């Protein structure tokens, strides 16, 4: 842990220091796992796609580690005092990878036409938008129907990738042939995809920032086996292991190698938070005392130290501590088996068995489910593990066929974007995963979530979210586990790899290799 913190600090220090002489040229090999289904970021937004396509596509803004907006395709922006008008000034001289000029029309088409049809997560934010217009070629105006506090956080490349109007207008987006050879405005151009082996990107010579990017080419390497990925890094075949590429127990061994650095930075925007959905509808998990007993029964520090090798932080509630509006003023559920037993006795738990559904994302998650099962059995909860593959997990969770189900979700920098969706009743919908799967219904809190999202003043929002967190933590609709940390492991001669809150996914426009 110490080394990790130290390197994180070092990176922060390098960022703050005046720019060192960046060297041009070189190549970077990065692991991508699993192989992305496609690279057209307007259509697919899963993790691997964002990692690779984050070099090809851009959005209007980027976000620093404190989640403050930074220029990207927009060089400046203005929000009206009533919080209803967002005006963006675009960069000059930006071209698409095929040489066509990029204009405000592309932004309007992307946000108002293309993504409204294809991007479920953005669609929810766009519901607040009255109109998107382009008064001239370098100005875009978003006019909101009502104030929406987190709106300024929706302009990240994975949330609002800007796609070329001249290629997609009037076509069937899903089957457009150009999806195979994506065209963006980003620092790197798509060159070749050898399915099953690698994706090759090359430097965009016409990038609008002078001198950038520094690298000549990037290879994203597809290596399906976790042990083989570790070997690939060990033998020097790859230079960067993005978070989660290798099993946790390999991390100390790899980071102790000479010339190897690691950082936990670059996850502030996503702030993945893991929990178990507790089925609030039926069985013992429908009783709030049972849910609280589960919280007290779990030794979450043990899991953090042993299963996750010390990476991450025990969660205190629905909002991750790195996210805006986090509040620590909540009930803390420390490891207390006796209290758990008391609560179970009070509710008259009859020993009815409960099923735990682990997340099928590798060994770490299996071990985690086993640790929880062990903890639960120690307080007399009869739990069994109900394993499945990814498709089966999606089916079981979306059909509410579980008692306790592991999951984790990205927070997207704001409770209204990445947190409330798991707790408000309007998000209950059978057959669709990644929403209020636990079936928590609390009309009073729903109203508070809605009110908080619509507040313009930051202090008002902070107070509202503090109140929400306090109340919901007592209700335990889900069992919060851990703020996940996925260290990025890389060779120390790679500089400026992680410069924003989105980490390696945010494109390698600043990265350079020291010979």
């Amino acid at each position: 842990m110490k080394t990790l913190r130290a390197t994180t600090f070092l990176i922060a220090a390098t960022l703050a220091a005046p720019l060192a002489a960046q060297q041009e040229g070189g190549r970077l090999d990065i692991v991508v796992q699993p192989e992305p289904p496609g690279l057209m970021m307007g259509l697919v937004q899963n993790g691997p796609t964002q990692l690779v396509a984050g070099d090809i596509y851009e959005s209007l803004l980027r976000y620093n580690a404190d989640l403050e907006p930074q220029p990207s395709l927009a060089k400046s922006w203005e929000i009206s005092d009533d919080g209803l008008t967002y005006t963006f000034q675009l960069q000059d001289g930006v071209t698409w990878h095929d040489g066509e000029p990029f204009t405000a029309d592309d932004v309007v088409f992307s946000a108002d036409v293309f993504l409204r049809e294809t991007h479920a997560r953005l669609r929810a934010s766009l519901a607040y938008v009255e109109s998107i217009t382009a008064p001239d070629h370098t100005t875009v105006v978003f006019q909101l129907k009502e104030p929406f506090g987190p709106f300024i956080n929706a302009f990240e490349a994975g949330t609002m990738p800007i796609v070329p109007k001249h290629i997609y207008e009037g076509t069937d987006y899903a089957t457009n042939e150009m999806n195979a050879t994506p065209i963006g405005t980003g620092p790197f151009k798509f060159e070749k995809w050898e399915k099953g082996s690698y994706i090759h990107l090359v430097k965009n010579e016409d990038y609008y920032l002078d001198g950038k990017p520094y690298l000549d080419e990037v290879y994203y390497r597809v290596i399906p086996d976790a042990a083989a990925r570790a070997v690939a890094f060990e033998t020097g075949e790859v230079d960067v292991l993005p978070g989660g590429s290798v099993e946790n127990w390999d991390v100390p061994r790899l980071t102790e190698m000479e010339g190897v650095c690691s950082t936990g930075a670059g996850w502030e925007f996503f702030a993945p938070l893991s929990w178990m959905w507790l089925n609030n509808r039926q069985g013992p998990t429908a009783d709030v005392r049972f849910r609280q007993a589960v919280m007290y029964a779990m030794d979450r520090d043990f899991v953090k130290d042993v299963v996750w090798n010390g990476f991450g932080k025990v969660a205190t509630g629905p909002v991750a501590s790195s996210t805006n509006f986090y509040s620590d003023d909540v009930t803390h559920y420390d490891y207390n088996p006796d209290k758990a037993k008391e609560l179970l006795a009070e509710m008259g738990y009859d020993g009815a068995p409960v099923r735990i559904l682990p997340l099928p994302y590798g060994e770490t998650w299996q071990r985690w489910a086993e640790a929880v099962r062990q903890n639960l059995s120690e307080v007399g909860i009869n739990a069994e593990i109900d394993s499945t593959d990814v498709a089966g997990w999606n089916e079981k969770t979306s059909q509410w066929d579980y008692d306790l189900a592991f999951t984790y979700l990205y927070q997207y920098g704001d409770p209204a974007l990445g947190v409330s969706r798991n707790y408000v009743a309007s998000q209950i919908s059978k057959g669709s995963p990644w929403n209020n799967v636990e079936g928590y219904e609390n009309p009073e809190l729903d109203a508070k979530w809605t009110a908080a999202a619509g507040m313009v003043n930051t202090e008002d929002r902070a107070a509202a979210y503090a109140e929400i967190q306090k109340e919901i933590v007592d209700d335990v609709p889900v069992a919060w586990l851990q703020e996940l940390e996925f260290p990025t492991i890389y060779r120390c001669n790679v500089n400026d790899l992680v410069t924003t809150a989105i980490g390696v996914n945010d494109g390698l426009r600043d990265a350079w290799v020291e010979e």
Partner: protein
Amino acid sequence: MTILTVILSRAFKAFLTLLAIAVLNFCLLHAAPGDPAVVLAGEAGAADEQMIEQLRERFGLDQPFYVQLGKYVGSVLTLDLGYSFRQGAPVAQLIAERLPATLLLTLTAFVISLVLGIAFGVAASARVGKASDSLLTTLALLFYATPLYWAALMAVLVFSVWLGWLPGFGYETVGAGYTGLARAFDIAKHLVLPALTLGLFFMAVYMRMTRASMLEVSQLDFVKTAKAKGLSGPAIRRRHILRNAILPVVTLAGLQVGQLVGGAVLTETVFAWPGIGRLMFESLAARDYNTILGVFLVSAAMVILFNIVTDIVYRLVDPRIGAKA
């Protein structure tokens, strides 16, 4: 029956078999839990009903089961393997991209295992009971009993990580830009470890079988006759014993060529080999129905094809078989 009529009648039966396999695959796959639209939506990190509905409609999953089955059989009959919505490409193209790598890997492994297996088997049977026989038999037992993935990991550890002699994964050196002979050599280097790993198990099987079969045939009367006629040991082994002893090995080899494609899933995963086994496994995890069905069908066709080839090889090895069939 001439070879030609045999092939024609076998081809017709093969066609019916394949059709039955296609229908069975389709039913089995749709009986499995999981829905490709939900998987795809889930991977996007968010989903609403509109998105799931759009996806299901695009996949054709909103239609009744028998309509989907009818459409699938119809397209198989016209040799159309469908479209992978997940990967955004025709299934036939996806398979065509991956099949050569798998064929290269499995056929190399197959040839290595068959040639070495038979050679060691013959050698062991010629020195039955001696120390060299015991050594070969023990080694065969070891290879036979070692799990494939463990052998693979150990091979990578020793030859790539420790010794650095051979690449531990991949199909070729990425971005090296080799062409012609240099590229072939580069691929060959990458091929060594996975082909050996995949071939070791079968080599052990063929060796044990050849040895046992050689010993059995060598007890038969016609071998005694040959000996009585004064033929030399090697000549008897080559012309009389091996020719008869090899038939069960051919049978087994024909069956196992089919298994090689399936067994390659593990090897391809450990060695990051861009083949069809991995394509199948990944498509299965994502419930990419069209791709899985396509891979299943092509694998089934290959098994049937190799069976026909085996039959023809029988006739070449032992002409008596053709007369009886």
